[in-house]
């Protein structure tokens, strides 16, 4: 057996450790296992601290706003903000219905059943430890019915989708991540094309032919084709258009403020539910509000 000189032991250790991690990468890619057990342990160890941190920050912020800063104004403002969020969600759905009515006519619209989805409100308690990937941790997980590939929204628009669900926490891949994507279409022309992230604040809309007419400021909404998000949820607004080969290069500003997320709504059904005709947007909103109330309980 050849003895390793002591001066080179660390070099051999380095080679061995790097090789082991390369093998670990290879195994994950081959099996798509992603080392779930290690992640479960690490997330399980860190999320209680994150939850405590979020609660402490929330408590300190709440105390300051409610008792030191502007006792009544702050509370009133918070109530109005909640109401505003609820109304925005309602407004989006009413706009969607109005648009459908314009396109398909009053009779067809009257016959169509509305779609409603069960949902839960979750608080953002952490972000990715990686500076390049765009993910968030939520304080709700499998116990609340959250599973992988469920859609995540705010009243402003699409946020992303669940990529991992743990017992009491889950992880969201934001729409701005390079690996993210959502089935979308232009709200006016109904031209369909997936929208994805590039790791920057703006999104890209792919596969829109150069012949198609797109204008700055056009709204982009979900198409429902990905079977994750219902149709007509706001995705973003067109901010840049360049001619490309063979498709236009279109950049969008996300409808939801993805850099300032504290609470989100998780859509709990992977398959869209067909409900009775009289199921209204208010009912969907009420569910979100119930979820919010549940969140605030200790």
């Amino acid at each position, binding site marked *: 057996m050849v003895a390793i000189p002591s001066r080179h032991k660390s070099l051999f250790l*380095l080679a061995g450790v790097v090789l082991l991690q390369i093998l670990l990468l290879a195994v994950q890619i081959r099996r798509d296992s992603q080392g779930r057990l290690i992640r479960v342990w*690490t997330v399980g160890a860190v999320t209680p601290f994150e939850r405590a*941190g979020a609660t402490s920050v929330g408590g300190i912020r709440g105390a300051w706003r409610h008792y030191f800063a502007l006792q009544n104004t702050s509370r009133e403002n918070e109530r109005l903000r909640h109401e505003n969020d609820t109304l925005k969600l309602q407004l989006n759905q009413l706009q969607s219905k109005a648009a459908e009515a314009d396109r398909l006519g009053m009779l067809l619209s009257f016959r169509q059943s509305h779609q409603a989805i069960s949902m839960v409100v979750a608080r953002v308690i952490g*972000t990715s*430890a990686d500076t390049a990937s765009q993910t968030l941790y939520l304080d709700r997980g499998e116990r609340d019915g959250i599973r992988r590939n469920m859609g995540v929204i705010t009243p402003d628009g699409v946020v992303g989708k669940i*990529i991992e669900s743990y017992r009491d926490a889950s992880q969201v891949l934001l729409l701005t991540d390079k*690996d993210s994507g959502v089935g979308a279409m232009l709200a006016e022309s109904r031209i369909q094309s997936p929208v994805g992230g590039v790791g920057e604040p703006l999104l890209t809309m792919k596969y829109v032919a150069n012949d198609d007419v797109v204008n700055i400021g056009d709204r982009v909404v979900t198409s429902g084709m990905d079977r994750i998000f219902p149709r007509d949820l706001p995705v973003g607004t067109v901010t840049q258009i360049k001619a490309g080969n063979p498709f236009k290069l279109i950049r969008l500003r996300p409808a939801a403020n993805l850099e300032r997320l*504290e609470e989100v709504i998780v859509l709990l059904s992977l398959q869209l539910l067909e409900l009775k005709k009289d199921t209204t947007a208010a009912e969907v909103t009420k569910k979100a509000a119930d979820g919010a109330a549940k969140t605030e309980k200790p």
Partner: protein
Amino acid sequence: MNDTYDLRIAEAHIEVHKFRGGTIAAATIIALFLQTSVPVYFPKFAVLDLPLLLTIYFGLSRRNPSSGLLLGMVIGLLQDSLSGRTIPLGLYGIAKTIVGYLASSIGARLDTEHPIARFALTIIFFGVHQGLIVVTRRLLLAQPEGWFTMHLAIGAAVNAIVGIPLFMLLDRLRKN
């Protein structure tokens, strides 16, 4: 032979620093906690890579390549496991293992106590770290990624600037 002898003479006056019990583990946990929590409230904080700064600091201070690379591996794997399914376990592990090894090897040969030296080394190691991630992504994961962006340049500068007071703070946790 003479080179080796001279090197050993030169290394003889470089002090190896030790830390109070639990310092490294506690610093690692706090860094990971801050890395995942603070950006929720201050998104710009995400430009900092606190786990990398710790890998560099403890590598430079302890000056033992074996412990430097093992610490880098542990910190990197923990960072991977908190980074979601889009980051496979090992991506940051490999990069931080090598940075830990290089930092402790350089720490054993140079005086790295001066703030300017620490500033320069942090920028260099940030670049090496990013380069290793890009290489790993391109070669092992088939994920094309650019070598340089302005965001990375800003990240290198910010991490180096924050590194100076952070390293001074960590200096106070050394055993005398």
